[in-house]
């Protein structure tokens, strides 16, 4: 969590990149993470693949399916990341659906995250109320940030409530869509970002969904601490594999 805190305190235009663990081949998890750090990503979200990713579009669905076919699992992911802090200094967040985490055991999962130096977790379908009731203390004691999503349909009141119980940052879903959708930012989205910014929230925000090139990244950065690139990067991995040069060039195009 300190790594997240430091990042948001010290930097603007944060470039956060999502990729699916175990994709395109099962042993690509660490090489991709290292290449992202070298290439200049400020924060990385590692996706834990799930059989039924209902908030994801075709690109991330396909990568999840491939990763599962490759034999990816939470257990294997923790093994792959076991010694990541020997080389990785940027914050790392795990993102995935609740069922595999529930099956693994939430307490055991958080324990493992703490042990290997994961900074935060995003579980889109873990209900906010259940988190507060059952897991908030667990996350706080382990120093693992729980990151919630907000959308254009989320009321001001609920955004404030989410802000009050968030650690790390808030994930601002840019539009009513699944991942990997539209590729330009509309006026009504800008209005929504401005509405969120006018609430005087305590936590920083990153904008995600539909951010996949230099223009959308730059626009998002004008309205938040930074932005998250997912499907566009997963597509690159699908085309070129864990190629260091390609990954570096991709981050460079987005950031500069």
């Amino acid at each position: 969590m300190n790594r997240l805190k430091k990042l948001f305190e010290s930097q603007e235009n944060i470039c956060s990149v999502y990729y699916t663990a175990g994709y395109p081949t099962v042993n690509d998890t660490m090489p991709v993470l290292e290449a992202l750090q070298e290439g200049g990503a400020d924060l990385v979200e590692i996706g834990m693949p799930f059989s039924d990713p209902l908030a994801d579009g075709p690109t991330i669905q396909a990568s999840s399916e491939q990763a599962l076919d490759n034999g990816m699992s939470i257990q294997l992911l923790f093994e792959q990341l076991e010694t990541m802090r020997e080389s990785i200094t940027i914050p790392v967040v795990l993102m995935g659906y609740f069922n595999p985490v529930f099956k693994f055991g939430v307490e055991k999962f958080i324990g493992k995250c703490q042990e290997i130096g994961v900074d935060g977790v995003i579980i889109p379908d873990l209900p906010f109320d259940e988190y507060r009731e059952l897991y908030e203390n667990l996350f706080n004691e382990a120093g693992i940030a729980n990151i919630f999503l907000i959308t254009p349909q989320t009321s001001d009141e609920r955004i404030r409530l989410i802000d009050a119980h968030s650690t790390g940052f808030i994930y601002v879903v840019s539009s009513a869509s699944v991942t990997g959708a539209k590729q330009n930012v509309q006026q009504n989205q800008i209005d929504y970002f401005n509405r969120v910014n006018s609430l005087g929230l305590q936590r920083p925000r990153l904008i995600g969904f539909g951010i996949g090139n230099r223009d959308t990244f730059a626009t998002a950065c004008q309205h938040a601490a930074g932005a998250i690139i997912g499907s566009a990067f997963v597509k690159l991995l699908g085309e070129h594999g864990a190629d260091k040069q390609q990954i570096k060039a991709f981050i460079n195009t987005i950031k500069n």
Partner: protein
Amino acid sequence: MSKQSKYQADEKGMYGRFGGAYIPEMLYPNIENLKKVYKEIIDSPAFQQEYKALLKDYVGRPSPLYLAKRLSDKYQTNVYLKREDLNHTGAHKINNTVGQILIAKHMGKQRIIAETGAGQHGVATATACALMGLQCVVYMGEVDIKRQAPNVARMKMLGAEVKAATSGSKTLKDATNEALRDWICNPEDTFYLIGSVVGPHPYPDMVARLQAVISEEIKLQISEKTSKDYPDYVIACVGGGSNAAGSFYHFLDDEKVKLVAVEASGMGVDSGETAATIALGDMGIIHGSKTFLMQSEDGQITEPYSISAGLDYPGIGPQHAHLFDTGRAQFLSATDKEALDAALQLTQLEGIIPALESAHALAALNKMQFQKDEAVVITLSGRGDKDMATYMERFGF
């Protein structure tokens, strides 16, 4: 319709330790909104009047409660069949779709989406949409579209757009994912019409209330036909579990009535080719609900198998999980072969060709002991026309 009991959902949509609403934030406002209005709409006189009129004149209710004499002789008891197979479109599914379509109309929604496995719920949804003049999009697994061509054609003739779910295993669970994704992308004008007592709260409760007409009628009909005002047994098949939920609804608090749910065990509970979710007993989260489901060691949802497409769901409604947990209902399972035998037996003893789903409920007769004076109600959830290809293949007619 608004009675509360320990077997019904609490304010958070929990049935004991099951249920709830495990949904991403994108769906939260939609679900909250529906949660706020559904009970009020269902209980309103305007809805009740319109719903009851449609059930009577359009669906053809009340459905008969038929004393199956030759079947009763064979099992030395009194077997009554609740004839949901005689409903318009051939199954109980229509009770739910005409109810939800009225709720959608009351909420001012213009566009209806639904998921379907074998196509029965898709047809029932497309029917209700044609009736109300609403736009209808049905998601169906690519594999199922190929297997169920007549139902695809029916939906299209009714004016629905059938969209193929091409992700994952390309069957019912993936069609459900696609429908949820559509709802995420169209949160304002679209109503998601779920076909069973599954999904996030309030769907399990809403669908159970709309299917509750089945047990409401059984209660009345049994007191007309016997000296008692309750049946000794109510038996129904369960996949997601909507016909069972409706058949049990008004008897949940009357513990004299023994409730029996029959799952599809496919090639056998331990064969790996099964849909007997309760028998496998693994807890988790599927399509927004905490319940029993079929999953791998790593929490990936696995593909169920049953000869009956309508029972082929890797989860089960959270209320059923709770009925199992509390012991209020007994859960049995029937294999493909037992269901086929039961279907043939009913056809030749009573002249009624049942749906393969309903045949699983009938198979329970061979697994239980009854007294001569007991009243055993079996819900015949649907007719067998749609299954003729399977029957022809299996029986060689």
